[in-house]
């Protein structure tokens, strides 16, 4: 498998630090075979879950060795680049390719014909549009030409009549790139989601309360 971070099967799950099987053993024994869950068992379960949640973000980028499951190599490369223009790196976090956006879309295209048509056709349309307008496909066009088409497509809520043929594709690609980004470790870190762990009691930090109440009209 080219990408060690993504499993091929949708049911197989990889967890960092604590093996999921171990966790279930800890939790499951208490529930199903023992008379009571002891305080220690519950603690262990929580510690296991905390360990899972504490695992640091990792890249989901399939890298140069990634073998596409549906898209052709050129389309995959185009999609990676397009994704990085839609969600580029900034001072806080890396670009969409670090979130495995193209690989995510490629995987689902391999599982859903309707989606495959949207991306095969859309990427094809994009190259044809660029060739007609600039004499080069999207990847080989100049950076200013690449952003010029995105300005047309995403410049207003309805898009430009000039790029209307790609309208469905542009909506899908942005939606799925953004989806992929925030369902990846880099996206979760960027947005600052800090949960999916275990707490022994629930409380919120006073700092957050003070910040909001100072800004609130009530």
């Amino acid at each position, binding site marked *: 498998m080219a990408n060690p971070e993504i499993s091929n099967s949708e049911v197989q799950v990889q967890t960092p630090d604590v093996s999921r099987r171990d966790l279930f053993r800890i*939790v499951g024994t208490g529930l199903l075979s023992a*008379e009571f*869950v002891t305080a220690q068992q519950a603690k262990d379960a929580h510690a296991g879950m905390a360990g899972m949640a504490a695992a640091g973000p990792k890249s989901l980028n399939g890298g140069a060795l990634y073998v596409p499951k549906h898209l052709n190599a050129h389309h995959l490369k185009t999609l990676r680049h397009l994704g990085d223009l839609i969600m580029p790196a900034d001072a806080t976090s890396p670009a969409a390719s670090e979130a495995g956006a193209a690989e995510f879309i490629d995987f*689902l295209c391999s599982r859903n014909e309707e989606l495959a048509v949207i991306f095969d056709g859309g990427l094809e349309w994009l190259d044809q549009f660029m060739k007609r307008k600039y004499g080069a496909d999207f990847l080989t066009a100049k950076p200013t030409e690449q952003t010029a088409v995105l300005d047309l497509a995403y410049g207003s809520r309805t898009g430009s009549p000039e790029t209307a043929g790609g309208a469905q594709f542009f909506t899908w690609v942005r939606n799925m790139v953004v989806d992929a980004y925030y369902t990846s470790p880099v996206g979760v870190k960027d947005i600052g989601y800090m949960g*999916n762990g275990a707490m022994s009691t629930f409380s919120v930090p006073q700092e957050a309360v003070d910040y*909001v109440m100072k800004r609130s009209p009530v």
Partner: protein
Amino acid sequence: MFQVQRTPVVHDVVVVGSGAGGGTTVKVLTDLGINVTLLEAGPNLVPEKDFKEHIWPWQVDHRGSGPNAESYFGKQEWGYWNAPNGYWNVPGEPYTVAPGDEFRWFRSRILGGRTNHYGRISLRFSDYDFKPQAFDGLGFDWPVTYDEMSPWYDKAEEFMGVTGTHEGIRSAPDGKFLPPVAPRVHEMLVQRAGKKLNIPVIPSRMAMLTKGIHGRAACHYCGQCGRGCQTASAFTSSQAMIFPALKTGKLKIITGAMARELMVNDEGLVRGVSYIDKATRTEKQISCRAVVVAASACESARLLLNSKSTKHPNGLGNGSGVVGRYLTDTVGYGLSGAVPALENMPRHNCDGIGGMHVYVPWWELDKKNKDFPRGYHIEIGGGLGMPQLGSFRGAAAQAGYGPSIKAAARQQYGTNISFSGRGEMIPNENSYCEIDNTKVDQWGIPVLKFHWKWQGYETKMVQHMHDTFVSFIETMGGRVPNRTFDPVASISKGGSIIHEAGTVRMGDDPKKSVLNKWSQAHEVKNLVVADAAPFNGNPDKNVTLTIVANAWRAAEHLAEEMKKGNV
């Protein structure tokens, strides 16, 4: 299926359905030493396999869309992560709806039923909910009072574990509570707004364990109760009631068993249950002393209506003709708005328990001149939740493309606060289910046909909800997305809140009701119904806690009757 398999053994009690009502019956009867055989139409539940708790989206290739991109094409109503096994459309198990009516019938097909994923909001019905006719002349009085039901609420709460505080509010009777959970930041804002609007916002009453009880570990506040809980810290009938009952040696579970008919003897009493063994597509029959039907309100009505005999030509126990009648669901409407005070809030873990930490009980019970009867409660949503597919599409669409997408997502994350109204529907003559004689499901069982009409006051209630939610959002300085509002278009479809009740109602008069005050059929003393079908009304209190309390009471009564030799 010409060779029907019969077992010579006579079982003590056969329970049909393993959700809140069936699970409670199993627990109570096996605790009292009675042998129980439980029929469940779906498969067994294996929490460590079936519950997707604590999995990050990137740990599956499809990130939660479903293995074939289902969510992108509207084909996954509950999302990939949640625990239900069933939904409104069950392959091979259709139902019909009368022309011009709309109704959606949710079915759960797994051990534990809907309790594996439900919201776990646990509210007692109030004194006036049991005597609504006496209260305002509408609906039907129960043959039980709040005071009679209260001790069973105590038992249900103490066993399930329900958070809460003593507030002394008539519409929201206090119970035996575990400690409440501290409010999240946006919930504190809602509390402040409530103070200004003179609307109570109190700690929520939820069946999650803030302390370990009955061998179940305390909650670890991951907020993923809807996915199912490995530690059983969120109540389910499967983990909290049925698995422990197996250890008594008194329980036998038959999964993949779709009940087809209750068979009667010459006296018209139940002698056994006929079911389809789904795996082999064969009909099997088991004999029993008594049967407890808890298959969900409409499925229970269907089973009785499909059990016709010379003694019971209109269906089992249906001399009154009210089986299937007076079907209700909850009136639902929701609105959310972005609250700028929450923008760029310092990040922290605000998962908590799955769902709200505070809620609004009905606050205008004593107000005169309302244009709708009874009332509703409000459920609060919001916070810094785990990002999912779709979470930031709106922010991205506003931003266009480039660095502004991340900036917009950071700013908007956690700023939305949602309000969901859950109101009372008073039973009416035009909302009911009956057998559709023209159609069968894949097991050869005649299907249900639904009729559904709101009466009109429900849309007035929805208007009141909308106005209230707008007041809350604007008081917090928030923005309400769309001010053009049509209550008729905005009200939930019947069945979509999944609180069906009332199809096999109880009462003192056998001419107008099917069951007596112990949920035992007037005409068939060894038949008990133990889900929400016996309910004479459907207050704004969600059904599960009352299902558990009423089933507990019914099961203890059945056990006494069996002991006395009456059943």
